[in-house]
């Protein structure tokens, strides 16, 4: 039983180690070095930063790199208003990364694509009061958002879009259109996209993060709608406001704080999305992306939604084209009449006498409450309807709020607890695995003690000694010594304190290279063209330095002259003589001279008649 458990734990540890090492390998600098290839000088990209909220001129600004700071952006946007709370939230790369209190003196660096949300004092206080009164998050959200909407400017609600274009987009929508479903319709995007859209609310208490925003819940002023990347069909986008590229806003205040309320002072700079119905009536989707990114036409401001009775009058061909370009969400089957679209919560159908000439059958619309042809879209959602009905000509507004409210609730406490428990379990397993692997490494190190002995052992510092003393009871002393010695060796390697020994190279013998030598081989630099050939050696008699130049230059003559002069032996070119040969020869001569003692010649006097006579007189032999 115990062995099986150990085996299971071992396999679990191996799997976790593999996963962790795979993750770490992607993060460790050595394994996957990402090199920024520097292009040629002069290539620069456009930098955009969006700002909305309590700012004088909200919008998107095109900046250069030196001015990519928070203070510079606020200065270009005309400064903060009196109603700002001083807190600025920075949304970067689709998430809220920082919330800071604005300081005009500091220089906060921004990045391209950042979105700045200047919080409002009024909305914040209203939301805080609501939360104090009702701590239930789920039921409070709608009220809080509604309160935030009420506290905002009555002219409209500022909303920012991310991942719609290659830059942030800041627009203003009307209160009645400040809902996610309406925004998606304005952008001419399918409503299914709402499930993957994240909304970062103006207050951290509001719904944000990964939770799904109710599609019919009101969007508070300053909300940031984060679309998933590459999910937007840009060809069907309406004309969105162009970014500002002016240096300093014309109405900028000398001080960065203290201007009039941005909600009431300057809102015309923010591009305003056309009202949904009006755009459906008048604005055709741009043909390409260039039209979508073009500046918003000024006439869009003058498009005022007509009264309800007038809005019902929509020509049938326009509506047909609109329905064909929009993905089918909920359509009515076998409807052959004309269509009239009302506001977001109401869809009106009328019969088209030109096409059918008869009213729709009541049994086909059994779920519609109104028999007069006018019904609410809430009741028009029918799961039995065929969305791919080819005869569908009318697009009904789906009220998905009830659908989403029933299934897509905010994160419950149980989910949070379960996630935390899962994380804790994973951390525990990881720690246990690490502990197990360390003990296993210790055992292997003890078994293979030769490796530990081969490593230089480092003198332990006080802390290491204390640590090792603590762990000695736990059986970790071997691993500590091994690790410290390896660390010391690596430190010496980093500090260039290790001796580098050079090893001779070994080439294989009898190398035969194949091919033709491309560079023409230069065998010898011919420097003797202007000079007669000279030997590699000269002979200089002692005291005859001047005569050396006039000596014969051919080698046989030189050798003959040398032998006649019984001088020293001629010197050979040094490359024809082995190294050490001269030394050996000299040593041999000296040894031979030392072995044979000097012979003393016997004196032999000269023999002349006079000397012989003298020698005879002296009694000697002649």
């Amino acid at each position: 039983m115990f062995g099986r458990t150990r085996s299971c734990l071992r396999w679990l540890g191996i799997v976790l180690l593999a996963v962790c090492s795979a993750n770490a390998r992607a993060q460790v600098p050595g394994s996957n070095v990402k090199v920024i290839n520097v292009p040629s000088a002069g290539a620069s990209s456009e930098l955009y930063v969006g700002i909305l909220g309590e700012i004088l001129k909200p919008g998107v600004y095109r900046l250069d790199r030196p001015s990519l700071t928070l203070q510079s952006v606020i200065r270009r946007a005309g400064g903060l208003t009196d109603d700002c709370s001083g807190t600025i939230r920075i949304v970067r790369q689709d998430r809220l990364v920082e919330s800071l209190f604005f300081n005009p003196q500091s220089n906060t660096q921004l990045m391209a694509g950042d979105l700045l949300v200047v919080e409002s004092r009024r909305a914040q206080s209203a939301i805080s009061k609501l939360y104090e009164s009702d701590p239930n998050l789920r039921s409070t959200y709608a009220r809080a958002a509604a309160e935030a909407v009420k506290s905002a400017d009555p002219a409209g609600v500022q909303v920012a879009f991310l991942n719609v274009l290659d830059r942030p987009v800041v627009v203003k929508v009307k209160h009645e259109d400040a809902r996610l479903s309406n925004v998606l319709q304005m952008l001419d995007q399918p409503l299914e996209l709402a499930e993957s859209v994240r909304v970062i609310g103006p207050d951290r208490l509001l719904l944000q993060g990964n939770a799904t925003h109710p599609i019919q819940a009101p969007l508070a002023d300053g909300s940031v709608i984060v679309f998933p990347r590459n999910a937007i069909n840009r060809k069907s986008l309406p004309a969105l406001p162009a970014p500002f590229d002016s240096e300093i806003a014309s109405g900028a205040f000398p001080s960065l704080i203290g201007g009039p309320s941005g909600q009431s002072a300057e809102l015309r700079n923010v591009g305003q999305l056309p009202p949904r119905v009006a755009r459906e009536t008048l604005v055709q989707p741009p043909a390409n992306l260039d039209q979508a990114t073009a500046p918003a036409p000024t006439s869009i401001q003058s498009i005022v939604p007509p009264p309800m009775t007038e809005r019902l009058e929509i020509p049938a061909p326009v509506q047909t084209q609109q329905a064909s370009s929009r993905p089918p969400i909920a359509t009515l089957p076998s409807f052959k009449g004309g269509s009239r679209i009302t506001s977001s919560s109401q869809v009106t159908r009328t019969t088209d006498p030109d096409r059918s000439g008869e009213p729709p059958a009541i049994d086909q619309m059994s779920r519609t409450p109104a028999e007069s042809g006018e019904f609410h879209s809430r009741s028009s959602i029918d799961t039995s309807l065929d969305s791919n009905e080819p005869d569908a000509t009318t697009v009904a507004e789906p009220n998905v709020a009830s659908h989403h409210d029933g299934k897509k609730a905010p994160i419950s406490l149980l989910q949070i607890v379960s996630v935390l428990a899962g994380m804790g379990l994973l951390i525990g397993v990881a720690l246990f695995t690490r502990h197990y692997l360390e003990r296993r490494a210790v055992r292997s190190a003890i078994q293979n003690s030769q490796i530990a002995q081969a490593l230089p052992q480092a003198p332990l510092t006080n802390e290491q000694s204390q640590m090792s003393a603590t762990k000695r009871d736990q059986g970790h002393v071997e691993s500590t010594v091994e690790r410290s010695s390896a660390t010391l060796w690596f430190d010496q390697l980093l500090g260039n304190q290790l001796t580098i020994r050079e090893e001779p190279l070994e080439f294989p013998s009898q190398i035969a290279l194949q091919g033709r030598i491309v560079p023409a081989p230069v065998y010898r630099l011919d420097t003797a063209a202007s000079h007669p050939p000279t030997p590699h050696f000269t002979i200089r008699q002692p005291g005859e330095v001047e005569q050396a130049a006039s000596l014969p230059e051919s080698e046989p003559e030189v050798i003959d002259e040398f032998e006649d002069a019984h001088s020293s032996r001629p010197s050979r070119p040094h490359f024809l003589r082995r190294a050490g040969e001269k030394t050996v020869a000299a040593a041999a001569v000296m040894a031979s001279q030392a072995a044979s003692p000097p012979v003393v010649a016997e004196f032999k006097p000269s023999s002349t008649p006079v000397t012989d006579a003298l020698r005879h007189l002296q009694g000697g032999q002649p």
Partner: protein
Amino acid sequence: MSVGLDLGTTELRSIRDSGGDLISRRCRASYLVLRDTSGHRRLLESFHARHGTCGDDLVVFGDDADECGSMLDVPAIPLLRDGRLPTDDPVARQILALMVEAVLPVNETPGAICCMTVPGGYGLEGDTQSLDVRFLKQLVALRGYTPQLISSGHAVVLAELSNSSFSGLGISLGATNCEVSVNHCGRELAVFTVPGELIDLDAADQRGAWERNCLRVLTTILTEAREALDSEGSIRLIQHPVSIACTGGITASEGFARLFQQAWHQSGWPLQVAQVRIATNPRFCIARGGLIKAILVGRPVSERRVA
């Protein structure tokens, strides 16, 4: 067994661990062609010069090529002309393969990593998959190693800037290319390659001429690197004050630190300098950085973070 391999334009070097000291091998990247005569054969045999045959010629390679060339007044042929392996010279490729085999010992440990630099740098777009790089990596792989390419500037940072947490600028002043690498905590953020200019120390007769030449080259390199990194926005990734490490042949000359300081001020880098570290052993600095990289990559994750 981890190995750091520096394939330079003028010399091939390797460093590996021997359980205590470091063992290095190096070889000059040049060869010499002599006519195949009995005299030349005797000459080379008496010198114990490493040579081979190619048709009717004798080919001497390595350090012996330079020595014999200087003695016989025959110029040695560089193996990597302008830092590139000549595509139309099959003999040069064979000699390079022989040299790599000689410099790199056979690995018998599976999974050993060899961090290598290539001549001419690889920072330019598409050079990582160029024919030269693939050929050199294949040579290393044939010796039993897993080749991993690093830039020479990154190797300089790993070798010299350990006291700065491997953060700063690594400048490698090679014979044919100079690399400026921006590193933060051992991770290479940007690399810029400047086609270098060979400063021949022996060619300058006067000291003043050499200094002017060296200062001009350094200023050009630093200015081009600053402009390129500034246009890309990589300069703001560098933390103040920055540590700089330099290596290369000219760093061994006297007065290089003063010249580098002048060139740094003239090039207008908007950075404060904490230290300028000149490599104490410029010959094996890059190879040692490659060895450090190979050891770090081959370690387990926990030990890597500790290191």
